[in-house]
């Protein structure tokens, strides 16, 4: 089987069939990357990512993982997408969550309540942390591969994975906590019991 690097080179040299094969191999993962990060159509983002591979000739030199290279481009495409939506052009994905950026409720379909909770939680943590976690668990990419995506030291990525999980756990607790708010409504009914106690 041809390597991704060979296919990309052939595509860059004008072999559309090679491009198609490369597209077929990575289309799903790229589509999935965008799905929990934007509402609405992802057509343009997926297409821009693949076209980006074609154009960024000198970035992938056949070293490291092609998937790191692909997701690196996808992440940049995502950043550009959100920058375009904001006037101030400064979006720091290390601290800003996609939810902060106005992404609506998760468009990704999830059958179970816990899954929806999880998707919602993911969208509430900084976008970079969200991406790191999703790549680490869903693809799955190794910490080394993720380091290449974001151009970070491996040690930093490991720390961020742990940090991201902790943030996610907090967010899930917060989103899920609405149930407890209700329970406290029940207990507040106890006040009545106190009021009826003889003076």
């Amino acid at each position, binding site marked *: 089987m041809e390597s991704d690097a060979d296919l990309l080179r052939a595509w860059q040299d004008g072999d*559309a069939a090679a491009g198609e094969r490369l597209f077929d191999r990575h289309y799903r993962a790229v589509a999935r990357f965008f799905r929990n990060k934007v509402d609405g159509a992802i057509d343009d983002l997926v297409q821009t990512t693949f076209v980006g591979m074609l154009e960024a000739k000198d970035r992938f030199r056949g070293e490291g993982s092609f998937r790191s290279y692909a997701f690196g481009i996808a992440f940049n495409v995502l950043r550009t997408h959100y920058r375009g939506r904001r006037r101030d052009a400064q979006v720091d994905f290390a601290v800003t969550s996609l939810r902060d950026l106005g992404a609506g409720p998760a468009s990704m379909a999830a*059958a*179970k309540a816990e899954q929806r909770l999880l998707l919602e939680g993911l969208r509430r943590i900084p976008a970079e942390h969200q991406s790191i976690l999703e790549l*680490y668990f869903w693809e799955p990419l190794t910490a080394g591969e993720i380091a290449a995506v974001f151009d970070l030291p491996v040690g930093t990525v490991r720390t961020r994975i742990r940090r991201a999980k902790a943030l996610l756990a907090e967010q899930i607790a917060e989103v899920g906590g609405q149930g407890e708010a209700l329970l406290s409504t029940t207990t507040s*009914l106890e006040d009545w019991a106190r009021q*009826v106690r003889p003076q």
Partner: protein
Amino acid sequence: MVPTDPADGPTGLVNDALGTLPPEEESYGVEDQLLRRKLKRQMFAAASVPPVKIGRYDVLEGIGRGAMGNVYAAVDGELDRKIAIKLLRAGRPGGRERMLREARALAKLSHPNVVTVHEVGTHGERVFVAMEFIAGNTLRAWLGQPRTREEVREVLGQAARGLHAAHQAGLVHRDFKPDNVIIGQDGRVRVVDFGLAKPSQPAEPVALVETPNDANGGAEAATDLTRTGQLVGTPAYMAAEQFLGEAVDARTDVFAFSVTLYECLANTRPFAGTNTAELAKSVLDEQVRALEGEGALPKLVHAGLSRDRERRPASMLPFIEALAAGTSSRPARRGARRWVFSAAALAVVAGGTVALRESDATSTAQPSPPRVQATAAASAGVKDPADDRAAEAMATLLEAPDEAARVEHAKAYLESFADTGGDARRAIAESTLGESLWRASCDRPTAGLCIDLQAKPTADAYPHCDGTRRGPIAQRPRDPALSADALAHLQIVAELAHATPPEREAERDAWAGATRLAHVRIADAELEPLLALAVPPDLDFQDETAALSSAAVRMFLTRVTRDAQRLLKGYKRAKGHSAELDVLAAFRTGLVFEAGSEPFALAPIPATLVDDAEKRAAYCDALDAVIEPPRQAAQKVYAWCDTRAAEGGVDSEAAQRCRNALGR
């Protein structure tokens, strides 16, 4: 396998959850293929990308997305015709068979006002429904332009006939709304999307508490009300039973049809609310914006919007008749009378369930129960001979030896002095009648409530966490006419609660007692159904403890807490007059709290947990967390009730029940 970091500790749960994702890849199967095909054509000018198939059909493009599934335009190559395909989301096991069964039943149904289903099949794990492609507009789009009443009646009449045909075939739509009614270019109206809206999971609870973080999503939430969401239907058209996750039937569609009809007639929807929680509250509290208009239709729509389905028309027939009546040249009056007749007939057919009370159907002809008017004499404090006569009549009433005599004197009093003898006296007389009727409306009351306490399930018949403290409660039906009359009188008493207290001590005392008792009875009318409420059987706990702590608990408590808070206010008003009333109100209060705990204690343990001691223990812990706070509150109230009874020398049935409940 997902790599796990041993240092994760408390985030292990997150690991587990992430390990199960990405979710629902398969729901993107067709979308994925269509998008892939489109991009490949764009990027590589690929001519030979094979078409995307569902069954034997070539999918052209997506034409709609919904919570139930997506709709595609497709081509049936064999018959060379364009069709529409709805690809349903995968449900939980068993749901698929049900969907197939229903879709096949629909395929057998042939009615001009119901979409024609060509084929039902499976695509991987998912069910698809191939149906006629209708060139036309949805009712919602059609309403975008001003329409005459005649046009609305014609279109809605056809839709009503379609719904009725489906009901006759045993199908329930579950998600009727203007978006699911299509008006073809030929003018023929078809109802689409039958029976597909059954949730594939326990219904999402209606969150009572909006998270502050959601503030920026407000505008979006408002528009979402007309979209089928994670709830069992579309919030704006959902009946109380759907918000509560209870079973649905044809009357659920009657409700949704009534909302739609209302919307068409009034250009606004009947229930206020900008988000699901507010909307649910409006529906459950029956806060309907009055529908203006002549004839039977507004009345019928209001009946259809009742919270309790027993009070809705039992079928679509009255709507079909009322809508047809308007399109003909017959005077509206005649149509109205015809409908009254058919409603009465329906009530008989429904086997004793009175679909519409006689008084509802005839009240156009009769004045509504006398409303309250402040009397000049009482408010101005002017003495006149008439006041002495009223006082005398009241004294006779207060000294009457038994209930029969009291009722007679109350009637006589109201006949002569209802509007002239003063508000407080009127309240006393009204209360006398109301209380008597209220008692008469129940054949075997339990401490004044029309309920049956059923036997406590034995431990082996009912394997549960730590057993249950009392059996379930069943509501005994009250005579509907008597109880409605009773409540009409008692409402007047409640409305007069702020009248000027009478000068005579006997009257003042009787009035204070009457007012408080009226508050108790009015609350009782709501307490009885609340006590009979069981944790909805449709909720399953297959997601084990997670589901218990979220969906089931929240949804059930949404209803219980809201109703309970209102009832507690009512009973609180009863306090502070006599030991007997205090005890009665306290006993009721204890029951209100138990309505929040005992149904959970009685919920059957999920079959999946019976044999797994560890999971069962976790489940029981979760259950206890829900049950304990209201149980403790109930115990506190019962303790107070018992003390108050002892102090005041009260030995009523309520007092005994408080005592028996203590330490239970």
